[in-house]
């Protein structure tokens, strides 16, 4: 295969990895955001967290793989993007750190033995889910719209700062991913739980989903009209985004939770495809100097590296998909608060702390 073709394949593969990430960690973020609102007592909150327990870490690996693949296939994109978006990524990293630890540690202490313990970790789960859900949208909107890049010592370098990234268009994009992930999470919770949580999640999905639909249409049209490099293709994908979202909200309304989840997952996929379609053939356009724009071709790594990585991806990705899907099959059963034994108790409470 030619270098040009390989570069396009890797652009597509990186889009695929982001699709996986938006679908999987998307509902993770949503569940984390909804945790304080949807769980009215400890048994309910633990049920909510337990829906993510076996899967959140595997879901997050999609991000690490997307990051690693960008490094391996488009080092120049990786370098300019990550150094340019430094403080935004710092916020995301801090959020992901406190959130991951919170999932693992929150039920270690009980409500009697350590009154603030779970409240603090719940705050960490909320903030740690809310910030990335917002910031990934801000980041992608900026990538698609272009940011100030200039040539310095032969490299394309970001010349703005954190506030350059917080422009109205990007913030709208952030609200869209925030809304999409929150709704996606609510639909996931309705699918994975029984009783009050299921009812509440179903209702919330409908309400947040509707608000999100308005924001998403505004953002989608703005992107389509102002920032798409492939208007014919991107408008088709935009229609698919809308149809899938309508399907998700409709199925949710009818209580068809499996279909609602499939449709909202499809929405996440179409959103990523839409953004990458608008972006192509660029990977990081400059808003100030066309010469500094990074493209699929000028940012791609060597033919040899891309060939090796293509083989690795072709062989390993299906294997990963098989065993990750199997995990979801193993833990397919709905959870309910009645299944959580002794919800107030912490697994690492010492005996005298519990009796006191």
């Amino acid at each position: 295969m030619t270098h040009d073709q390989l570069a396009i394949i890797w652009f597509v593969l990186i889009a695929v990895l982001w699709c996986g990430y938006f679908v999987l960690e998307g509902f993770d973020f949503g569940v984390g955001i909804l945790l304080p609102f949807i769980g009215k007592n400890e048994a309910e909150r633990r049920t909510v967290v337990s829906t993510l327990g076996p899967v959140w870490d595997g879901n997050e690996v999609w991000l690490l793989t997307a990051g690693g693949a960008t490094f391996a296939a488009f080092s120049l994109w990786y370098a300019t993007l990550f150094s340019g978006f430094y403080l935004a990524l710092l916020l995301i990293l801090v959020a992901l750190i406190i959130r991951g630890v919170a999932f693992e540690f929150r039920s270690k202490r009980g409500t009697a033995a350590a009154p603030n313990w779970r409240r603090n970790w719940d705050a960490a789960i909320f903030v740690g889910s809310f910030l990335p859900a917002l910031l990934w949208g801000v980041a992608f909107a900026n990538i698609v719209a272009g940011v100030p890049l200039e040539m310095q010592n032969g490299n394309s370098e970001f010349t703005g700062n954190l506030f350059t990234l917080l422009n109205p268009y990007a913030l709208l994009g952030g609200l869209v991913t925030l809304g999409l992930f929150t709704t996606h999470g609510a639909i996931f919770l309705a699918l994975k739980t029984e009783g009050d949580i299921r009812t509440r999640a179903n209702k919330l999905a409908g309400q947040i989903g509707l608000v999100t639909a308005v924001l998403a249409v505004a953002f989608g049209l703005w992107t389509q009209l102002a920032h798409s490099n492939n208007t014919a293709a991107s408008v088709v994908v935009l229609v698919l985004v809308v149809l899938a979202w309508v399907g998700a909200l409709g199925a949710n309304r009818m209580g068809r939770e499996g279909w609602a989840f499939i449709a909202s997952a499809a929405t996440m996929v179409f959103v990523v495809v839409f953004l990458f379609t608008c972006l192509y053939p660029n990977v990081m356009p400059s808003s100030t100097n066309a010469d500094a724009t990074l493209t699929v071709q000028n940012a791609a790594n060597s033919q040899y590296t891309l060939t090796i990585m293509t083989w690795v991806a072709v062989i390993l990705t299906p294997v990963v998909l098989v065993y990750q899907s199997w995990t979801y099959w193993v833990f397919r059963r709905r959870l309910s608060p009645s299944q959580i034994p002794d919800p107030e108790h912490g697994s690492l409470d010492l005996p005298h702390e519990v009796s006191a």
Partner: protein
Amino acid sequence: MNALDLARWQFGITTVYHFLFVPLTIGTSMLTAVMQTAWFRTGDEKWLKATKFFGKLFLINFALGVVTGIVQEFQFGMAWSDYSRFVGDIFGAPLAVEALASFFLESTFLGLWIFGWDRLPRGLHLATIWAAAFGTMLSAYFILAANSFMQHPDGYVINPVTKRAELTSFGAVLTQNTTVATFAHVISSAFLVSGVAIVGVSLWLIMKGKSVDAMRSTLKLGAIVAIVAGLLVMYTGDVQAKIMVKQQPMKMAAAEAVYKTAENVPFSLVTVGSLDGSEAYWALDIPGLTSFLATGSWTGPESTVQGINDLQAEYEKKFGPGNYAPYVPLAFWAFRAMIGLGGLGVLFAIFALWITRKGRVPSKAWIRLMSSIALLVPLVGISAGWIFTEMGRQPWIVYGLMKTENGVSPTMSSFTVGLSLVVFTLLYGALAVIEVGLLVRAVKIGPPETVELMDADDANNGQTLTFSY
């Protein structure tokens, strides 16, 4: 401090911190798998208790390993963008393969293991912890292949147009002797650390009189692993040192503070030198040992070890003016801390076997104190080993190809990197306090008195969860 210094501190702090969790993850995941296998094969409940107990400790530790690992992948691009541009064609590949081949494996199968006790048939459930343990080792292999490229670049050419390094042989990156020797050394050290950790915890609980039967078995398991791993650490370290002498002679010269090229070079146990390390006043030496470690010969022309001053002159000729020696006192002491603390760990394992022989239960307070801090000894040792490896390579970020000062992100202000340095340090500090607190609690509580297991049919019919978050 300028942005470069701050970025170096940040990389050092976040990497050393992340690597506190890595060896314990690698070693303990596999040893927990061994314990569960023992239960699966014998049906003896003590092994089930041991599995549950050490599995719990392992998972508390693993949580921090995972979240601090994300920072590692991101900060190459964030703080070291020119480095990422220069080596990305080579360095990115093992990182991406690591994520795809091993991170998915570890995280997915650990999730299955943690929540799958009553969801999966016992044999399949056992397989999940082995898969996760295998994933941690695979991950180590790929990241060490990437690091080995920084120590000894192989399988690349410099593109004359772009001036960037380009991969010509992925096989060379994955199989060059630097990679293989480093992997063997790091993995055996990880098992040494984990073996000592298990011995320390087991001994403490035996002295407390908790689950004595199970803890005697795990103490033996941990001690044997630590002793065998200790021997392997010595052997692989020796192999690695001889490779290093050929590939990075300056690092070995700094480790031994050898300034002038000489034969029959002694190994100094302790040296008092000038503050900048350029002159030694007094030293306690073992004759010829450095020569032997570096070359395999005690005396004669073949025992010649190149000195820092001569290497400096040689490199100036080759690379132009500049300082090509690492900070000698740090390399010198980190090298000794690595060897000394690793050795102490092995001695502790032997000691623990001896004092618990034939059913004996020690009761002295100092032994209990020792058992509770034993883990720290090889853990600090393995950290010292990495500090030596990375600091000993300075001033290079990629040996002979790129200096560290040229790898830093040119757009990053000292305010930006200073801010993230403060944020990471405070956050990591707080998490360390929380994690140690939980580990101490878990050890105090000890293994469960009884373990009830449901079979998969009951569990799928909507019974109470045996484990939930």
